[in-house]
């Protein structure tokens, strides 16, 4: 009995392995997939789920999305682990292309960051005429609990830049560094009655599920530009430049740009991303 079982299990295991290898092999030779390394905000806001099926229908190219922070996405580009990047940290992106890791970078769309926190703090921030620097100073002075993404993402980099501009070294029990994605951090801020800096898209998407209101918005410093970068194909043989180019051109085409501008309008009255891509 036991021996039979062992033999059966072994056979099953071998089969699973074979199937697994097969899928692996398929991925290697299949020029019909591209790997897109992007930020958690494009995934958590639902934009990609809305766009990618349309692209796949039109071209037959499957897009595999790896949603990580901008820092890691750029690293994946450097390591040749992705074919194309959709990220938001413009100066880092330009540096990336300058160093020869990427072929081209284009603006795609933008949205903005907002400072969100518990309702009862609204009054405190009302008189700040939407000055994010002043707001950060207020947070540090009153030691309001603040949750930082702490994961080298575009949002995290933006937040650190604001602290630098405010001349504050954020540390202490009030400053919580989470090391997680945007959706998780918003949920944490909600639970801990804390303030956090988030991109508007993810916030709008979660707005009904959390009890946080916008404290500061529409400061020029909170502008958030997304860019698309083709990874340099000289890194390894597996990089699918053709597919990546097709995706980039599709993303920058007038039709897709219009689609981006419409996403979220029906649910949030405002689009989550404003397209500004040009070929």
């Amino acid at each position, binding site marked *: 009995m036991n021996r039979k079982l062992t033999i059966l299990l072994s056979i099953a295991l071998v089969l699973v392995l074979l199937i697994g290898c097969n899928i692996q092999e398929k991925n290697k030779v299949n020029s019909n997939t591209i790997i897109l390394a992007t930020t958690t905000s494009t995934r958590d806001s639902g934009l990609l789920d809305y766009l990618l099926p349309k692209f796949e229908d039109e071209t037959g190219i499957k897009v595999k999305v790896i949603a*990580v*922070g901008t*820092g*890691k996405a*750029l*690293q*994946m580009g450097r*390591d040749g682990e992705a074919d194309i990047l959709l990220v938001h940290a413009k100066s880092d992106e330009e540096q990336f292309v300058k160093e020869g890791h990427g072929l081209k970078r284009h603006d795609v769309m933008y949205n903005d960051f907002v400072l969100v926190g518990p309702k009862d703090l609204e009054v405190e921030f009302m008189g700040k005429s939407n000055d994010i620097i002043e707001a950060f100073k207020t947070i540090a002075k009153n030691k309001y609990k603040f949750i930082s993404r*702490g*994961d*080298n993402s575009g949002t995290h980099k933006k937040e650190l830049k604001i602290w630098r501009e405010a001349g504050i070294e954020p540390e202490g029990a009030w400053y*919580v*560094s*989470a*090391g*997680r994605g945007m959706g*998780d951090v918003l949920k*944490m801020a*909600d*639970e*801990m009655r804390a303030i956090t800096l988030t991109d508007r898209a993810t916030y709008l998407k979660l707005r009904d599920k959390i009890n946080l209101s916008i404290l500061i918005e529409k400061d020029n410093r909170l502008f958030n530009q997304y860019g698309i970068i083709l990874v340099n194909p000289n890194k390894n043989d597996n990089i699918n430049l053709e597919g990546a180019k097709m995706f980039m051109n599709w993303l920058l085409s007038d039709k897709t740009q219009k689609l981006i501008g419409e996403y979220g309008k029906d649910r949030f009255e405002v689009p989550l991303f404003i397209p500004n891509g040009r070929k």
Partner: protein
Amino acid sequence: MDYILDGVKEAIKLLLSFDREMYQIILLSIFVSSTSTVLASIITVPIGIFLGLKSFKGKKLFTRILYTFMSIPSVIVGLIVAIILSRRGPLGFLNLLYTPMAMIIAQTLLVTPLILGLTYNLSKFRGKEIEKLGITLGANRIDILILIIRELKVDILLNVITGFSRAISEIGTVMIVGGNIKGYTRVITTSIAMFNSMGDYSKAIALGIVLLIISFLVNNIIYTYTQEE
């Protein structure tokens, strides 16, 4: 390929330089998992032995359900605990979510069925003999329980260690209920996942090495004892 070697080199440097952040993470991991294991053991070892000896209606069904729960996915335990402890949940007033305490609660719940199942199994197959012996010597229930724990202490300890190794190597519950907060609820597994998503391979590898060493030590203890048997 270079970055892997560099990562390993950097990792060993980090560990030898006694980087404070690293050791805080490692110590919290050990603290949370061992506390959970001890708590779970205190509750489950006596119950497991008692249930193993007793014959009751539906014992077969009970056994099956228990064995299923032994391998309950950790994310599910994490999810349940997070829902209960969240501010809108039934125990929200305790303000426990995203604290080490929450991690201990969740891991305790995670290893309870495992240790219970293992102990129950042990007592079902080997407890009967000892019970008979105890009865002939005129022992009462409590005496028998103590006698069994004494006789089977090595095996029980092995079950407890199995529970510990499950707790320290899982990520599902601690990520969800702990929230991976810097200097507060960061443990080895959540940090590895985070450092990887930040592209900080050397720190991820350093913690990976530590986790491997812990697993190795734990398995070594188990192996040594089972050899002696």
